[in-house]
């Protein structure tokens, strides 16, 4: 059991740190500013050129064929250095691995290089208004035509949809089959006629997500990913990718957020308040608990190809901890009657409201507790 890098890992980390220092702007003292879209795209292209995209993809598909720990180091160092999310995070970490497993030769030849270079940005079309926690009940219909498929339906909570070139879509092709067996995955051109993207305004005022409305969109014959009726299995593969290292990203973000909280406490002059001190210490413990649990999950992933059972708690506990952190941030700025908080006031108001979605998005806490209970603890299935 050890926590230090191997020689190769240490070398990779040191190079990456130097590279990030050279390519990222110096971190701001105040709240983070969102990156404009052209800079986001440019950053992704720069990452691709430097060989930092597709670290764990096989070499034959243009990746570097590295073990997951390098992806974890990359995620952690990038986040701690203040890099934005890769604009093609869905392409790199979800769609790419899915295509490597299920895609046709033609799909691999076109999409994989495009994802790596940043020329093809992907979004994901899984959730629907009536299919949230119960994803298998998607209603978007793909009907057979002479030359392919015709798709009609509505997808929600799709991130990066407003920037995306293509979408990995889950649709129902067999309306009479049992609900998990009637689904198929497709690749969809976001510029095809009948595709409409509508931004979703969230309670925080952000518009990170979109609705995608599909009205008789024609898909060509070769757009299917995996076999017809096998969409549920393909979608599960897509969702399972990055389970091992996404926890590392979440934890690194949480560490950055705790740093902001501590800066805010200093700015508003709350660092002598016993209750604030205790809660910050408590948040630090929770953060560290997640961080080292992420490392344990990573070690299991490296050894056995699957993250260990402890990884199932990462997202559940991350969401609770982030909400607690944002709540304290809000309390600090709302209690700042002297007006020292400055831009931090607006930052924590937005962050606090945004954080309420953490226990819903990407698996509700209720669903995650059920997964832990049944799959990890082996409790009898809920009836």
């Amino acid at each position, binding site marked *: 059991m050890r*926590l230090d890098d191997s020689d190769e890992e240490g070398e990779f980390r040191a190079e990456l740190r130097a590279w990030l220092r050279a390519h990222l702007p110096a971190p701001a003292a105040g709240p983070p500013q969102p990156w404009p879209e052209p800079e986001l795209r440019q950053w992704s292209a720069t990452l691709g050129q430097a060989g930092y995209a597709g670290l764990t993809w096989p070499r034959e598909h243009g990746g570097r064929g590295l073990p997951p720990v390098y992806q974890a180091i990359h995620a952690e160092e990038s986040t701690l250095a203040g890099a934005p999310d890769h604009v093609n995070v869905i392409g790199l970490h979800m769609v790419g691995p899915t295509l490597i497993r299920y895609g046709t030769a033609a799909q691999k030849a076109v999409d994989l290089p495009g994802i790596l270079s940043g020329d093809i940005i992907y979004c994901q079309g899984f959730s629907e208004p009536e299919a949230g926690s119960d994803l298998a009940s998607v209603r978007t219909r793909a009907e057979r035509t002479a030359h392919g498929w015709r798709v009609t339906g509505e997808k929600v909570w799709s991130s990066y949809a407003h920037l995306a070139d293509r979408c990995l879509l889950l649709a129902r092709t067999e309306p009479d089959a049992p609900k998990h067996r009637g689904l198929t995955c497709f690749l969809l051109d976001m510029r095809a006629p009948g595709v409409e993207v509508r931004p979703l305004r969230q309670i925080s005022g952000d518009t990170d997500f979109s609705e995608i409305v599909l009205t008789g969109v024609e898909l060509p014959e070769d757009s299917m990913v995996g076999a017809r009726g096998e969409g549920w299995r393909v979608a599960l593969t897509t969702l399972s990718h990055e389970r091992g290292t996404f926890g590392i990203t979440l934890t690194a973000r949480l560490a950055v957020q705790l740093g902001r909280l501590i800066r805010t406490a200093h700015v508003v002059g709350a660092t002598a308040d016993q209750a604030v001190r205790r809660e910050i210490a408590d948040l630090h413990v929770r953060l560290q*608990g*997640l961080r080292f649990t992420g490392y344990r999950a990573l070690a299991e992933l490296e050894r056995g190809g699957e993250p260990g059972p402890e990884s199932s708690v990462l997202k559940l506990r991350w969401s609770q901890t982030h909400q607690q952190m944002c709540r304290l941030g809000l309390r600090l700025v709302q209690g700042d009657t002297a007006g020292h908080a400055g831009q931090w006031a607006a930052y924590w108001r937005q962050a606090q409201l945004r954080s309420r979605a953490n226990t819903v998005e990407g698996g509700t806490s209720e669903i995650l*507790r059920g997964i*832990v*209970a049944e799959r990890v603890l082996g409790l009898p299935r*809920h009836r």
Partner: protein
Amino acid sequence: MDFATTTTQRGLADAARRHLSDRFPPSRLAATADHGVLDPEDWAALDRQGWLDAELGPVDLALLAEESGRALLPQPWVGTAGSALPVYQSARLPLPGPAALVDSSDTCAAHDAQDWRISGSAPGVVDAHLATELVVAATTRQGVALFGVAPSEVSVAVRDDIDPLRRYATVRLLHAPARLLADPGRTAELLPALRLRSAMLLACEAVGVADGALAEAVRYAGIRTQFGQPIGSFQAVAHQLAEAYAEIETARSLAYRAAVTLNGAGAVEAVACAAVAGPRAAVLACEVALQVCGGIAMTWEFGLHLRYRRALWLDAHRVTSVPPHDALAALLLS
């Protein structure tokens, strides 16, 4: 980075678990809790199992502490291994048996014609009544040094507390003859390290207490039937157990990390995190287990209360004068 137990480490933990579950069935624990008599043969058996070997590293000790917590091992092994063993190792002396550290600012040592003699008192010595020798930190003219004192030379007043399997005593010394175990120079190095090591092992013990409680509750929830189905199939029960699992796994990560980090930079922060998380997980897991097991768990005979009492003891016990939350706040907000 490879933050997982090795095959050897897992073997050590598995052997420890088997040994303890064979040797300490619930009936023995219950009898010890009621009557308070320990069997010296149990200590000898631990020694034979290698629990006192000099070559055990911090991670090995951490895993053994976890198992001792799971089994509520009724022997003062955690205290001895955490706060006394390194003193004897450093002095190249054999461990005389179970030992307890007397770490009070209110003890003084003076050297008369022949012997060191110690006077003073310490109010919260853990399991002093079970020790073969007391390791006493006492102030000398040259600074604080560590001494060995025979229990027969001191007054040990045990007091009732929440945990019948681990008790505090007030130790009073009046010109008690002592042997020098570590001079002030070595003590200055040893004493802070002993405190960190003790706190780390207690955090690991807490994880074992918690994990044992969760395992009992999960087992019970799978077999107890109400309204025609096992109660573990109700979300109201299952989700409480899932939250306890989340609390335990994060605490376990911090406990192991404290062990890995123990002798390096960052040990203070790492041990403080583990010391916060471990007892919290133990208290939560026991409370969830009591709730899930319901009426039967409220009986003395069911035995879950012994775990809960240990969890509450761990939650209140302080190895250092600065509580871990305060230590962390000072590090983070300085």
